[in-house]
Protein backbone atom coordinates (compact mmCIF):
# COMPACT_ATOMS: atom_id res chain seq x y z
CA UNK A 1 0.00 0.00 0.00
CA UNK A 2 1.42 3.40 -0.96
CA UNK A 3 1.21 6.36 1.42
CA UNK A 4 -1.60 8.02 -0.54
CA UNK A 5 -3.71 4.94 -0.88
CA UNK A 6 -6.95 4.61 1.07
CA UNK A 7 -7.77 1.14 2.30
CA UNK A 8 -11.50 0.45 2.25
CA UNK A 9 -11.34 -3.32 1.84
CA UNK A 10 -11.55 -4.47 5.45
CA UNK A 11 -14.07 -7.17 4.56
CA UNK A 12 -11.29 -8.82 2.53
CA UNK A 13 -8.78 -8.54 5.33
CA UNK A 14 -7.93 -6.09 8.07
CA UNK A 15 -4.48 -4.60 8.71
CA UNK A 16 -2.92 -6.30 11.70
CA UNK A 17 -3.19 -4.34 14.96
CA UNK A 18 0.35 -3.37 16.12
CA UNK A 19 -0.41 -4.68 19.63
CA UNK A 20 -1.35 -8.04 18.08
CA UNK A 21 1.79 -8.13 15.93
CA UNK A 22 3.93 -7.43 18.98
CA UNK A 23 2.41 -10.31 20.95
CA UNK A 24 2.74 -12.63 17.97
CA UNK A 25 6.40 -11.77 17.56
CA UNK A 26 7.05 -12.85 21.14
CA UNK A 27 4.99 -16.02 20.71
CA UNK A 28 7.09 -17.07 17.70
CA UNK A 29 9.61 -18.40 20.19
CA UNK A 30 7.20 -20.79 21.85
CA UNK A 31 7.76 -24.57 21.63
CA UNK A 32 5.38 -27.24 20.39
CA UNK A 33 2.40 -27.15 22.76
CA UNK A 34 2.08 -30.95 22.52
CA UNK A 35 5.56 -31.49 23.99
CA UNK A 36 5.67 -32.74 27.55
CA UNK A 37 8.70 -30.70 28.65
CA UNK A 38 8.49 -27.36 30.39
CA UNK A 39 8.85 -25.33 27.17
CA UNK A 40 6.00 -27.33 25.65
CA UNK A 41 3.91 -26.83 28.76
CA UNK A 42 4.49 -23.08 28.60
CA UNK A 43 3.33 -23.05 24.97
CA UNK A 44 0.28 -25.17 25.86
CA UNK A 45 -0.55 -22.74 28.65
CA UNK A 46 -0.50 -19.82 26.24
CA UNK A 47 -2.62 -21.72 23.73
CA UNK A 48 -5.17 -22.56 26.44
CA UNK A 49 -5.31 -18.96 27.65
CA UNK A 50 -6.00 -17.92 24.08
CA UNK A 51 -8.65 -20.62 23.72
CA UNK A 52 -10.46 -19.33 26.81
CA UNK A 53 -10.30 -15.76 25.48
CA UNK A 54 -11.71 -16.50 22.03
CA UNK A 55 -14.29 -19.01 23.25
CA UNK A 56 -15.35 -16.68 26.05
CA UNK A 57 -15.88 -13.83 23.58
CA UNK A 58 -18.66 -15.83 21.93
CA UNK A 59 -20.13 -17.18 25.17
CA UNK A 60 -18.46 -20.59 25.02
CA UNK A 61 -16.14 -22.58 27.26
CA UNK A 62 -12.62 -23.58 26.18
CA UNK A 63 -13.51 -27.19 25.44
CA UNK A 64 -16.05 -26.04 22.87
CA UNK A 65 -13.42 -24.47 20.58
CA UNK A 66 -10.98 -26.05 18.18
CA UNK A 67 -8.42 -24.11 16.18
CA UNK A 68 -8.52 -24.19 12.40
CA UNK A 69 -6.61 -22.40 9.64
CA UNK A 70 -9.47 -19.94 9.19
CA UNK A 71 -13.19 -19.70 8.60
CA UNK A 72 -12.97 -21.70 5.36
CA UNK A 73 -11.65 -24.73 7.19
CA UNK A 74 -14.08 -24.24 10.06
CA UNK A 75 -17.01 -24.10 7.60
CA UNK A 76 -15.81 -27.23 5.82
CA UNK A 77 -15.28 -29.10 9.08
CA UNK A 78 -18.72 -28.06 10.34
CA UNK A 79 -20.54 -29.02 7.14
CA UNK A 80 -18.64 -32.04 5.87
CA UNK A 81 -17.54 -33.23 9.30
CA UNK A 82 -20.96 -32.60 10.79
CA UNK A 83 -22.81 -34.67 8.20
CA UNK A 84 -20.13 -37.29 7.49
CA UNK A 85 -21.80 -40.13 9.35
CA UNK A 86 -25.22 -39.62 7.86
CA UNK A 87 -27.07 -40.91 4.85
CA UNK A 88 -27.97 -38.17 2.35
CA UNK A 89 -30.98 -36.15 3.50
CA UNK A 90 -31.90 -32.45 3.44
CA UNK A 91 -30.00 -29.16 3.93
CA UNK A 92 -31.27 -25.56 4.11
CA UNK A 93 -28.94 -22.70 3.21
CA UNK A 94 -28.96 -19.40 1.28
CA UNK A 95 -27.63 -18.57 -2.18
CA UNK A 96 -25.76 -15.63 -0.72
CA UNK A 97 -23.50 -17.67 1.58
CA UNK A 98 -19.71 -17.46 1.20
CA UNK A 99 -18.10 -19.97 -1.16
CA UNK A 100 -16.61 -21.67 1.90
CA UNK A 101 -20.17 -22.77 2.71
CA UNK A 102 -21.64 -23.06 -0.79
CA UNK A 103 -18.94 -25.30 -2.17
CA UNK A 104 -18.95 -28.01 0.53
CA UNK A 105 -22.76 -28.02 0.36
CA UNK A 106 -22.62 -28.37 -3.43
CA UNK A 107 -20.30 -31.29 -2.93
CA UNK A 108 -22.85 -32.94 -0.65
CA UNK A 109 -25.57 -32.18 -3.21
CA UNK A 110 -23.55 -34.08 -5.83
CA UNK A 111 -23.46 -36.95 -3.35
CA UNK A 112 -27.24 -37.13 -3.17
CA UNK A 113 -28.20 -34.55 -0.51
CA UNK A 114 -31.28 -32.39 -1.24
CA UNK A 115 -30.60 -28.69 -0.76
CA UNK A 116 -33.05 -25.82 -0.36
CA UNK A 117 -31.24 -22.70 -1.64
CA UNK A 118 -32.93 -19.66 -0.08
CA UNK A 119 -33.15 -16.34 -1.89
CA UNK A 120 -32.83 -13.21 0.24
CA UNK A 121 -35.05 -10.16 -0.01
CA UNK A 122 -33.92 -7.02 -1.83
CA UNK A 123 -32.11 -5.94 1.35
CA UNK A 124 -29.99 -9.12 1.33
CA UNK A 125 -31.67 -10.53 4.44
CA UNK A 126 -33.34 -13.94 4.51
CA UNK A 127 -36.29 -13.70 6.90
CA UNK A 128 -36.09 -16.19 9.80
CA UNK A 129 -39.52 -17.51 8.84
CA UNK A 130 -38.26 -18.28 5.32
CA UNK A 131 -35.33 -20.23 6.77
CA UNK A 132 -37.66 -22.28 8.96
CA UNK A 133 -40.38 -22.90 6.37
CA UNK A 134 -38.51 -25.52 4.30
CA UNK A 135 -37.14 -27.37 7.36
CA UNK A 136 -38.39 -30.95 7.30
CA UNK A 137 -38.13 -33.97 9.56
CA UNK A 138 -35.02 -35.16 7.68
CA UNK A 139 -33.30 -31.76 7.53
CA UNK A 140 -29.84 -32.38 8.97
CA UNK A 141 -28.21 -28.97 8.52
CA UNK A 142 -29.29 -25.35 8.42
CA UNK A 143 -26.43 -23.06 7.44
CA UNK A 144 -26.94 -19.28 7.55
CA UNK A 145 -24.16 -16.70 7.79
CA UNK A 146 -24.34 -13.96 10.43
CA UNK A 147 -23.10 -11.09 8.25
CA UNK A 148 -22.79 -11.25 4.48
CA UNK A 149 -19.30 -10.43 3.20
CA UNK A 150 -20.49 -8.45 0.17
CA UNK A 151 -23.53 -6.52 1.38
CA UNK A 152 -23.05 -6.59 5.16
CA UNK A 153 -26.64 -7.89 5.53
CA UNK A 154 -27.22 -9.17 9.08
CA UNK A 155 -29.32 -12.30 9.56
CA UNK A 156 -31.45 -12.73 12.65
CA UNK A 157 -29.45 -15.70 13.92
CA UNK A 158 -31.07 -15.73 17.36
CA UNK A 159 -34.57 -15.97 15.87
CA UNK A 160 -33.54 -18.87 13.64
CA UNK A 161 -31.68 -20.61 16.46
CA UNK A 162 -34.61 -20.28 18.86
CA UNK A 163 -36.97 -21.90 16.41
CA UNK A 164 -34.54 -24.70 15.57
CA UNK A 165 -33.92 -25.48 19.24
CA UNK A 166 -36.17 -28.53 19.25
CA UNK A 167 -35.13 -29.77 15.82
CA UNK A 168 -32.24 -32.26 15.47
CA UNK A 169 -30.73 -30.40 12.48
CA UNK A 170 -27.33 -28.82 13.10
CA UNK A 171 -27.42 -25.03 12.98
CA UNK A 172 -24.19 -23.73 11.45
CA UNK A 173 -23.29 -20.03 11.34
CA UNK A 174 -20.37 -18.48 9.45
CA UNK A 175 -19.48 -15.50 11.62
CA UNK A 176 -16.26 -14.47 9.86
CA UNK A 177 -17.66 -11.01 9.06
CA UNK A 178 -19.50 -10.38 12.31
CA UNK A 179 -16.92 -11.20 14.98
CA UNK A 180 -15.43 -7.70 14.92
CA UNK A 181 -18.73 -5.86 14.76
CA UNK A 182 -21.63 -7.60 16.47
CA UNK A 183 -22.08 -9.44 19.75
CA UNK A 184 -22.17 -13.23 19.37
CA UNK A 185 -23.41 -15.64 22.02
CA UNK A 186 -23.45 -19.23 20.87
CA UNK A 187 -25.90 -20.32 23.58
CA UNK A 188 -28.29 -17.38 23.49
CA UNK A 189 -28.38 -17.61 19.68
CA UNK A 190 -28.90 -21.37 19.66
CA UNK A 191 -25.90 -22.01 17.40
CA UNK A 192 -24.48 -25.55 17.08
CA UNK A 193 -21.43 -24.76 14.96
CA UNK A 194 -19.82 -21.33 14.65
CA UNK A 195 -17.00 -20.49 12.20
CA UNK A 196 -14.59 -17.66 13.07
CA UNK A 197 -11.59 -16.03 11.40
CA UNK A 198 -8.88 -13.83 12.93
CA UNK A 199 -7.89 -11.77 9.91
CA UNK A 200 -11.26 -10.02 9.66
CA UNK A 201 -10.71 -8.44 13.08
CA UNK A 202 -7.15 -7.08 12.87
CA UNK A 203 -5.60 -10.45 13.71
CA UNK A 204 -3.37 -12.59 11.48
CA UNK A 205 -4.60 -14.54 8.46
CA UNK A 206 -4.24 -18.31 8.65
CA UNK A 207 -5.98 -18.87 11.98
CA UNK A 208 -9.63 -19.36 12.81
CA UNK A 209 -11.80 -21.50 14.99
CA UNK A 210 -14.81 -23.76 15.01
CA UNK A 211 -16.86 -23.30 18.16
CA UNK A 212 -19.31 -26.08 18.97
CA UNK A 213 -22.38 -26.30 21.12
CA UNK A 214 -21.62 -27.89 24.48
CA UNK A 215 -21.77 -31.65 24.28
CA UNK A 216 -21.81 -31.86 20.50
CA UNK A 217 -20.02 -35.09 19.56
CA UNK A 218 -21.21 -35.73 16.06
CA UNK A 219 -18.23 -34.29 14.19
CA UNK A 220 -15.85 -36.34 12.02
CA UNK A 221 -12.37 -34.93 11.28
CA UNK A 222 -11.46 -34.08 7.68
CA UNK A 223 -7.79 -34.87 8.27
CA UNK A 224 -6.02 -37.59 10.17
CA UNK A 225 -2.75 -37.39 12.04
CA UNK A 226 -1.31 -36.66 15.43
CA UNK A 227 -4.56 -36.41 17.36
CA UNK A 228 -4.32 -32.69 18.25
CA UNK A 229 -7.55 -30.81 19.00
CA UNK A 230 -9.12 -34.02 20.26
CA UNK A 231 -8.44 -35.64 16.91
CA UNK A 232 -10.82 -33.23 15.16
CA UNK A 233 -8.08 -31.14 13.64
CA UNK A 234 -4.72 -32.88 13.81
CA UNK A 235 -1.45 -31.07 13.11
CA UNK A 236 1.00 -29.12 15.26
CA UNK A 237 -0.68 -26.00 16.60
CA UNK A 238 0.78 -22.60 15.66
CA UNK A 239 1.06 -20.80 19.01
CA UNK A 240 1.98 -17.43 17.48
CA UNK A 241 -1.17 -17.49 15.30
CA UNK A 242 -3.33 -18.58 18.19
CA UNK A 243 -1.88 -15.94 20.51
CA UNK A 244 -2.46 -13.41 17.72
CA UNK A 245 -6.12 -14.38 17.40
CA UNK A 246 -6.68 -14.00 21.14
CA UNK A 247 -4.84 -10.67 21.19
CA UNK A 248 -7.07 -9.44 18.35
CA UNK A 249 -10.17 -10.47 20.30
CA UNK A 250 -8.92 -8.66 23.42
CA UNK A 251 -8.37 -5.56 21.26
CA UNK A 252 -12.01 -5.80 20.13
CA UNK A 253 -13.00 -5.55 23.76
CA UNK A 254 -10.72 -2.52 24.30
CA UNK A 255 -12.04 -0.84 21.14
CA UNK A 256 -15.68 -1.44 22.05
CA UNK A 257 -16.74 1.94 20.66
CA UNK A 258 -15.56 1.01 17.15
CA UNK A 259 -18.86 -0.38 15.80
CA UNK A 260 -20.83 2.81 16.52
CA UNK A 261 -18.06 5.05 15.28
CA UNK A 262 -17.59 3.05 12.07
CA UNK A 263 -21.34 2.89 11.45
CA UNK A 264 -21.48 6.70 11.62
CA UNK A 265 -18.52 6.93 9.24
CA UNK A 266 -20.21 4.51 6.87
CA UNK A 267 -23.32 6.70 6.81
CA UNK A 268 -21.10 9.72 6.15
CA UNK A 269 -19.65 7.79 3.20
CA UNK A 270 -23.14 7.06 1.88
CA UNK A 271 -24.19 10.70 2.33
CA UNK A 272 -21.35 11.62 -0.04
CA UNK A 273 -21.85 8.84 -2.57
CA UNK A 274 -25.63 9.21 -2.71
CA UNK A 275 -25.13 12.52 -4.53
CA UNK A 276 -23.75 10.64 -7.56
CA UNK A 277 -26.47 10.26 -10.17
CA UNK A 278 -27.72 6.69 -10.63
CA UNK A 279 -26.21 5.31 -7.42
CA UNK A 280 -28.21 2.63 -5.59
CA UNK A 281 -27.46 1.29 -2.13
CA UNK A 282 -27.47 -2.50 -1.83
CA UNK A 283 -28.81 -3.13 1.64
CA UNK A 284 -30.58 -1.14 4.32
CA UNK A 285 -28.54 0.75 6.92
CA UNK A 286 -30.49 -0.73 9.83
CA UNK A 287 -29.97 -4.32 8.67
CA UNK A 288 -26.30 -4.16 7.68
CA UNK A 289 -23.20 -4.57 9.82
CA UNK A 290 -21.39 -1.28 10.54
CA UNK A 291 -18.41 -1.78 8.25
CA UNK A 292 -19.83 -2.52 4.77
CA UNK A 293 -21.36 -0.26 2.15
CA UNK A 294 -22.24 -1.84 -1.17
CA UNK A 295 -23.39 0.46 -3.96
CA UNK A 296 -24.36 0.04 -7.61
CA UNK A 297 -23.35 2.86 -9.96
CA UNK A 298 -26.06 2.24 -12.54
CA UNK A 299 -25.12 3.14 -16.10
CA UNK A 300 -21.37 3.03 -15.48
CA UNK A 301 -18.95 0.23 -16.26
CA UNK A 302 -17.67 -1.15 -12.96
CA UNK A 303 -14.33 -2.20 -14.33
CA UNK A 304 -13.65 1.28 -15.68
CA UNK A 305 -14.87 2.83 -12.43
CA UNK A 306 -12.37 0.71 -10.46
CA UNK A 307 -9.65 1.43 -13.02
CA UNK A 308 -10.20 5.11 -12.39
CA UNK A 309 -9.62 4.64 -8.65
CA UNK A 310 -6.02 3.44 -8.47
CA UNK A 311 -5.48 4.96 -5.04
CA UNK A 312 -8.57 3.42 -3.51
CA UNK A 313 -8.37 -0.14 -2.24
CA UNK A 314 -11.94 -1.39 -2.69
CA UNK A 315 -13.41 -4.39 -4.41
CA UNK A 316 -16.17 -5.23 -6.79
CA UNK A 317 -18.75 -7.54 -5.27
CA UNK A 318 -16.74 -10.57 -6.16
CA UNK A 319 -13.23 -11.24 -7.40
CA UNK A 320 -14.32 -9.98 -10.79
CA UNK A 321 -11.42 -8.21 -12.39
CA UNK A 322 -11.66 -8.37 -16.15
CA UNK A 323 -14.47 -8.74 -18.65
CA UNK A 324 -15.96 -12.17 -19.02
CA UNK A 325 -15.67 -13.25 -15.41
CA UNK A 326 -18.70 -14.01 -13.32
CA UNK A 327 -20.34 -11.00 -11.69
CA UNK A 328 -21.33 -11.12 -8.01
CA UNK A 329 -23.76 -13.98 -7.35
CA UNK A 330 -24.73 -12.26 -4.12
CA UNK A 331 -25.92 -9.09 -5.84
CA UNK A 332 -27.68 -11.06 -8.56
CA UNK A 333 -29.51 -13.01 -5.85
CA UNK A 334 -30.71 -9.62 -4.56
CA UNK A 335 -32.22 -8.90 -7.97
CA UNK A 336 -29.44 -6.84 -9.56
CA UNK A 337 -28.82 -7.47 -13.27
CA UNK A 338 -25.45 -8.74 -14.46
CA UNK A 339 -24.49 -5.24 -15.68
CA UNK A 340 -25.59 -3.68 -12.37
CA UNK A 341 -23.69 -6.27 -10.37
CA UNK A 342 -20.59 -5.44 -12.41
CA UNK A 343 -21.17 -1.74 -11.77
CA UNK A 344 -21.04 -2.21 -8.01
CA UNK A 345 -18.41 -1.46 -5.41
CA UNK A 346 -18.03 -2.91 -1.94
CA UNK A 347 -16.47 -0.38 0.39
CA UNK A 348 -15.57 -1.81 3.78
CA UNK A 349 -14.30 0.27 6.66
CA UNK A 350 -12.15 -0.60 9.63
CA UNK A 351 -11.67 0.81 13.09
CA UNK A 352 -8.67 2.85 11.88
CA UNK A 353 -10.60 4.46 9.00
CA UNK A 354 -10.75 8.27 9.34
CA UNK A 355 -13.22 10.96 8.24
CA UNK A 356 -10.48 12.41 6.02
CA UNK A 357 -10.13 9.05 4.25
CA UNK A 358 -13.88 8.83 3.71
CA UNK A 359 -14.00 12.38 2.33
CA UNK A 360 -11.11 11.65 -0.01
CA UNK A 361 -12.74 8.40 -1.14
CA UNK A 362 -16.01 10.22 -1.89
CA UNK A 363 -14.13 12.83 -3.92
CA UNK A 364 -12.23 10.19 -5.89
CA UNK A 365 -15.30 8.09 -6.66
CA UNK A 366 -17.37 11.16 -7.59
CA UNK A 367 -14.64 12.35 -9.97
CA UNK A 368 -14.17 8.93 -11.54
CA UNK A 369 -17.93 8.56 -12.05
CA UNK A 370 -18.24 12.05 -13.52
CA UNK A 371 -15.40 11.36 -15.92
CA UNK A 372 -16.98 8.13 -17.19
CA UNK A 373 -20.33 9.87 -17.57
CA UNK A 374 -18.74 12.66 -19.63
CA UNK A 375 -17.10 10.06 -21.88
CA UNK A 376 -20.40 8.43 -22.80
CA UNK A 377 -21.91 9.10 -26.22
CA UNK A 378 -25.12 11.09 -26.19
CA UNK A 379 -28.21 8.89 -26.32
CA UNK A 380 -28.65 7.78 -29.93
Amino acid at each position, binding site marked *: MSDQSIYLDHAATTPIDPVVAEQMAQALHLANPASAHSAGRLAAERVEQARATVAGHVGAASEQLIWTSGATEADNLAILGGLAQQAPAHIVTARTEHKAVLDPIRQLERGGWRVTWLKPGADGVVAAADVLAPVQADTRLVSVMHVNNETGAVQDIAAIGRQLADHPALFHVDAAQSLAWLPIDINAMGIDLLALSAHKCHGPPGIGALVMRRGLVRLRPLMHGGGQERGLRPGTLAPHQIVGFAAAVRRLQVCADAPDRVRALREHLWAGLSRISGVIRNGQPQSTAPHILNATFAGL*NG*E*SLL*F*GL*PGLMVSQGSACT*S*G*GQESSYVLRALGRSD*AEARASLRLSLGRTTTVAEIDAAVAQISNAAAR*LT*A*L*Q*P*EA*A
Partner: protein
Amino acid sequence: METLRARFETLRWARGADEPITEATARATTPASDDVVEISLRFCDGGIESARFRAHGSPATLCAADWACEYAETGGADVLTLCATDVAEALHLARIQMPAALMAVDALQAAYRRWQDVGAQEHQSQQTVSTV
Protein backbone atom coordinates in the same frame (compact mmCIF):
# COMPACT_ATOMS: atom_id res chain seq x y z
CA MET B 1 5.33 -1.08 -23.57
CA GLU B 2 2.10 0.87 -23.51
CA THR B 3 -0.15 -0.04 -20.62
CA LEU B 4 -3.90 0.37 -20.50
CA ARG B 5 -3.50 2.10 -17.17
CA ALA B 6 -1.28 4.85 -18.53
CA ARG B 7 -3.56 5.50 -21.50
CA PHE B 8 -6.69 5.32 -19.34
CA GLU B 9 -5.31 8.07 -17.12
CA THR B 10 -5.21 10.58 -19.98
CA LEU B 11 -7.62 9.46 -22.76
CA ARG B 12 -6.49 12.55 -24.65
CA TRP B 13 -8.67 11.92 -27.69
CA ALA B 14 -11.97 11.95 -25.81
CA ARG B 15 -14.46 14.41 -27.32
CA GLY B 16 -14.92 17.25 -24.86
CA ALA B 17 -18.24 18.75 -23.82
CA ASP B 18 -17.59 21.80 -26.02
CA GLU B 19 -16.64 19.83 -29.12
CA PRO B 20 -19.68 19.22 -31.32
CA ILE B 21 -20.32 15.96 -33.07
CA THR B 22 -19.23 16.05 -36.75
CA GLU B 23 -20.99 14.72 -39.80
CA ALA B 24 -18.41 11.97 -40.14
CA THR B 25 -19.43 10.16 -36.99
CA ALA B 26 -20.13 6.48 -36.49
CA ARG B 27 -20.79 4.07 -33.66
CA ALA B 28 -19.93 0.43 -33.15
CA THR B 29 -21.36 -1.93 -30.55
CA THR B 30 -20.82 -5.54 -29.55
CA PRO B 31 -23.18 -8.32 -28.55
CA ALA B 32 -20.58 -9.40 -25.97
CA SER B 33 -21.55 -6.52 -23.65
CA ASP B 34 -23.25 -3.13 -23.59
CA ASP B 35 -20.03 -1.40 -24.65
CA VAL B 36 -20.21 1.21 -27.38
CA VAL B 37 -17.61 3.29 -29.25
CA GLU B 38 -18.42 6.47 -31.17
CA ILE B 39 -15.77 8.20 -33.30
CA SER B 40 -16.10 11.63 -34.89
CA LEU B 41 -13.71 12.79 -37.61
CA ARG B 42 -13.04 16.29 -38.88
CA PHE B 43 -11.28 16.79 -42.20
CA CYS B 44 -9.22 19.48 -43.88
CA ASP B 45 -7.42 19.45 -47.21
CA GLY B 46 -8.63 15.93 -47.85
CA GLY B 47 -7.01 14.55 -44.72
CA ILE B 48 -8.08 13.90 -41.13
CA GLU B 49 -7.68 17.01 -39.06
CA SER B 50 -9.00 15.61 -35.84
CA ALA B 51 -10.42 12.37 -34.43
CA ARG B 52 -12.42 12.25 -31.20
CA PHE B 53 -14.25 9.51 -29.37
CA ARG B 54 -16.96 8.93 -26.84
CA ALA B 55 -17.38 5.46 -25.37
CA HIS B 56 -19.07 3.44 -22.68
CA GLY B 57 -17.48 0.26 -21.45
CA SER B 58 -14.43 -1.43 -20.09
CA PRO B 59 -10.99 0.19 -19.83
CA ALA B 60 -9.99 -1.79 -22.94
CA THR B 61 -12.89 -0.29 -24.91
CA LEU B 62 -12.10 3.28 -23.83
CA CYS B 63 -8.38 2.84 -24.49
CA ALA B 64 -8.87 1.16 -27.88
CA ALA B 65 -11.11 4.05 -28.99
CA ASP B 66 -8.52 6.54 -27.75
CA TRP B 67 -5.70 4.70 -29.51
CA ALA B 68 -7.63 4.53 -32.79
CA CYS B 69 -8.25 8.29 -32.67
CA GLU B 70 -4.59 8.98 -32.01
CA TYR B 71 -3.66 6.73 -34.92
CA ALA B 72 -6.12 8.46 -37.25
CA GLU B 73 -5.11 11.95 -36.24
CA THR B 74 -1.36 11.66 -35.92
CA GLY B 75 -0.39 8.60 -37.95
CA GLY B 76 -1.01 10.04 -41.39
CA ALA B 77 -1.69 6.43 -42.31
CA ASP B 78 -4.59 5.02 -44.23
CA VAL B 79 -7.24 4.29 -41.63
CA LEU B 80 -8.94 1.81 -43.93
CA THR B 81 -6.04 -0.63 -43.68
CA LEU B 82 -5.98 -0.55 -39.87
CA CYS B 83 -6.70 -3.97 -38.31
CA ALA B 84 -8.07 -4.82 -34.89
CA THR B 85 -4.93 -6.85 -34.27
CA ASP B 86 -2.87 -3.64 -34.67
CA VAL B 87 -4.84 -2.07 -31.82
CA ALA B 88 -4.71 -5.22 -29.73
CA GLU B 89 -0.95 -5.51 -30.16
CA ALA B 90 -0.31 -1.86 -29.40
CA LEU B 91 -2.32 -2.03 -26.19
CA HIS B 92 -1.34 -5.60 -25.25
CA LEU B 93 -4.97 -6.62 -25.10
CA ALA B 94 -5.91 -10.13 -24.03
CA ARG B 95 -7.99 -12.30 -26.37
CA ILE B 96 -11.07 -11.64 -24.29
CA GLN B 97 -10.59 -7.90 -24.92
CA MET B 98 -10.57 -8.28 -28.72
CA PRO B 99 -14.13 -6.89 -29.13
CA ALA B 100 -12.77 -3.57 -27.82
CA ALA B 101 -10.22 -3.38 -30.65
CA LEU B 102 -12.82 -4.44 -33.22
CA MET B 103 -15.27 -1.78 -32.11
CA ALA B 104 -12.65 0.96 -32.25
CA VAL B 105 -11.55 -0.01 -35.76
CA ASP B 106 -15.12 -0.43 -36.99
CA ALA B 107 -16.23 2.94 -35.66
CA LEU B 108 -13.18 4.69 -37.09
CA GLN B 109 -13.43 3.13 -40.54
CA ALA B 110 -17.19 3.66 -40.71
CA ALA B 111 -16.78 7.33 -39.83
CA TYR B 112 -14.15 7.64 -42.53
CA ARG B 113 -16.37 5.95 -45.12
CA ARG B 114 -19.24 8.22 -44.24
CA TRP B 115 -17.07 11.18 -45.10
CA GLN B 116 -16.06 9.50 -48.38
CA ASP B 117 -19.65 8.56 -49.24
CA VAL B 118 -21.16 11.85 -48.37
CA GLY B 119 -18.45 13.66 -50.27
CA ALA B 120 -19.11 17.35 -50.39
CA GLN B 121 -22.78 16.93 -49.55
CA GLU B 122 -24.06 18.17 -46.26
CA HIS B 123 -25.26 15.35 -44.08
CA GLN B 124 -26.32 15.79 -40.52
CA SER B 125 -27.31 12.37 -39.33
CA GLN B 126 -25.17 9.89 -37.51
CA GLN B 127 -25.67 6.19 -37.40
CA THR B 128 -24.59 2.97 -35.78
CA VAL B 129 -22.73 1.23 -38.53
CA SER B 130 -21.60 -1.98 -37.10
CA THR B 131 -21.96 -4.53 -34.45
CA VAL B 132 -18.89 -6.63 -33.89
